[in-house]
């Protein structure tokens, strides 16, 4: 079973944190394994996922897109329809219920695009928890709408001025806060990254995506899909879709990273495609780093992909060849964004637009009637301003 007891997926994962956090991680591990086996906890989580977040989400057959893409059959897993607008709430609901179980009155989170921040602020308000969200000032600037939403929800948004002023630095600050306030605070990490048990726990909470999709595609097509496709930043929506199909060897996994301004420009976030092995934010995985081990600044037009690390389970999938990882550029992602908006009436998040863009690229090679499930991880309302600016320049 992966991960093993020490939190390793093959050689990836582990627990690389300051000593002060070790007891909190152990407590979390214990409480999580208890909760996982607890009928009441699972019932409660299912209740909130259904009645509050809006699960199950549809598996929508995108007819016009399919026709346009050489006659493959494209199904969209509509996580964009969830409350708060992205898959992030699957995880924050689970972790907030855990925080309540552990009697921690305060939760903190890091956020890049603001989607995880909003999803955390939302559950904090739902369960009456105090909430602080760390966000780089660069991201605060480009995701102003989500900052406002978090504030409306009663959370405090703490600007992070250090380093690249984006997601990586927000993570550093959140960890520093946790080291300081570990006794009364639970840190809700938003992706399948961080020290054990986070990659395991966040994956489990996100697996609802793949489990539903499996049931739904069977009902619709009476067979498994040929391909699963999802964008990868830290990697939570993709692992959530992939993992339940892990043992179905014929189902191929494709993860799409952000190529930003191009792989050779140095301004990208293609960690699995271009990174090297290293240790950051609590686990061993692929990283964007220089020859001395200093972490490089990632770049993507999609703030949610703008991260120089990636979840250890993805690193493992890459190593054993279970998944294939590719990257598309900012410009291609924008084309994917426009394509889905125009042809299906669905405005995707720029993150999810990366998956659409890659699908468009490879569709002619896949073969007619191949079934592809794409995780549409979030909706694009948050990105309207960015897209408006860029497309204007192009006109």
């Amino acid at each position, binding site marked *: 079973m992966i991960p093993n007891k020490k939190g390793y997926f093959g050689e990836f994962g582990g627990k690389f944190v300051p*000593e002060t956090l070790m007891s909190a991680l152990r407590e979390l591990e214990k409480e999580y394994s208890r909760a996982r086996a607890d009928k009441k906890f699972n019932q409660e989580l299912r209740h909130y996922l259904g009645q509050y977040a809006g699960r199950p989400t549809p598996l929508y057959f995108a007819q016009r897109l399919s026709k346009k893409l050489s006659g493959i059959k494209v199904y969209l897993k509509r996580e964009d329809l969830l409350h708060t607008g992205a898959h992030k709430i699957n995880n924050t609901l689970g972790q907030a219920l855990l925080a309540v179980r552990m009697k921690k009155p305060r939760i903190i989170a890091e956020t890049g695009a603001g989607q995880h921040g909003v999803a955390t602020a939302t559950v904090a308000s739902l369960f009456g928890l105090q909430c602080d969200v760390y966000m780089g000032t660069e991201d605060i600037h480009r995701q102003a709408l989500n900052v406002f939403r978090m504030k409306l929800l009663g959370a405090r948004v703490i600007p992070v001025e250090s380093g690249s002023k984006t997601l990586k630095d927000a993570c550093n600050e959140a*960890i520093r806060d946790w080291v300081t306030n570990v006794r009364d605070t639970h840190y809700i990490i938003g992706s399948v990254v961080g020290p054990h048990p986070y990659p395991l726990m966040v994956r489990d909470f996100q697996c609802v995506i793949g489990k539903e999709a499996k049931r739904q595609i069977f009902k619709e097509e009476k067979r498994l899909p040929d391909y699963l496709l999802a964008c990868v930043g830290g990697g939570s929506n993709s692992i959530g879709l992939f993992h339940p199909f892990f043992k179905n060897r014929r189902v191929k996994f494709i993860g799409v990273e952000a190529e930003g301004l191009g792989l050779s420009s140095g301004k990208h976030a293609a960690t699995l495609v271009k990174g090297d092995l290293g240790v950051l934010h609590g686990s061993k995985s692929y990283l964007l780093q220089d020859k001395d081990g200093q972490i490089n600044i990632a770049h993507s037009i999609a703030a949610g992909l703008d991260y120089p690390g990636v979840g250890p389970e993805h690193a493992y999938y890459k190593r054993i060849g279970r998944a294939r990882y590719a990257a598309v550029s900012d410009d291609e992602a924008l084309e994917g964004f426009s394509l889905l908006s125009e042809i299906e009436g669905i405005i995707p998040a720029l993150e999810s637009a990366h998956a659409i863009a890659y699908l468009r690229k490879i569709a002619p090679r896949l073969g007619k009637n191949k079934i592809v499930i794409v995780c549409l991880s979030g909706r694009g309302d948050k990105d309207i301003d960015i897209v408006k600016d860029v497309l204007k320049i192009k006109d």
Partner: protein
Amino acid sequence: MRMNRIDKKFKELRRQKKKALISFITCGDPNLTTTYQLALEFDRGGTDILELGVPFSDPLADGPVIQAASGRALKNKVNLASVFGLVKRVREKSEMPIALLTYYNIIYRFGIKNFVKQARLAGVDGVIVPDLPVEEARELIKEARKGKLATIFLLAPTTEAKRIRQICSASSGFIYYVSLTGTTGVRKTLPEELKRRLRQIKRITAKPVCVGFGISSPQQAAEAAAVADGVIVGSAIIKVIERNLGHKDLVSKVAEFAGRLRGAL
């Protein structure tokens, strides 16, 4: 067989019934020449062990003061090779024990075997890795033992009794007790539980235990040293560097502060 300089130092201090002053600076802050001068001044002024920070882009156990120091050092492109070069130069003039503090990715990227080898060749005596708990440190411990490099692990206020034993047995040189839950940085007061925790640790191990994090003044250093074998002062020293950036008398001002710390112990 040669004894590790850190062990030798603590033996000597015990004989003299003295407490260790461990001074921390980041290598290359604000430049390598200053670090070289400070190292020699510290030695002259009674610092017992130099803790030298190797800068990392994402120092998540550090507060704003040491983060800024790392930032200044990284502007000078300081890396392990330049740190080893500096230690070699200091070794031509000084036998003061030197421990490196850095984050695990720096060592991992360099290669653990190679790191230990180069560290010993340069004259480094110990290593502290704040994001490497004992469970993940097997390879580093194995190589360090072979190279006679001390592995100094941290104990936190939240560490349970069973782990304290495990960490003490994996540690060599000394044990680094983190005085508070938090990052490095100056604090107004020391936590009340400090004495009780140190007594608990001293019952478990005979190895030297030194206290760091938050010690900001000679008075606090004296207070902490009363219950420990030594104190580690970092942010407070770096604040003096920060205040005197660009001034000719930076080195003498910092040395003077370290001297006052020595005087209080």
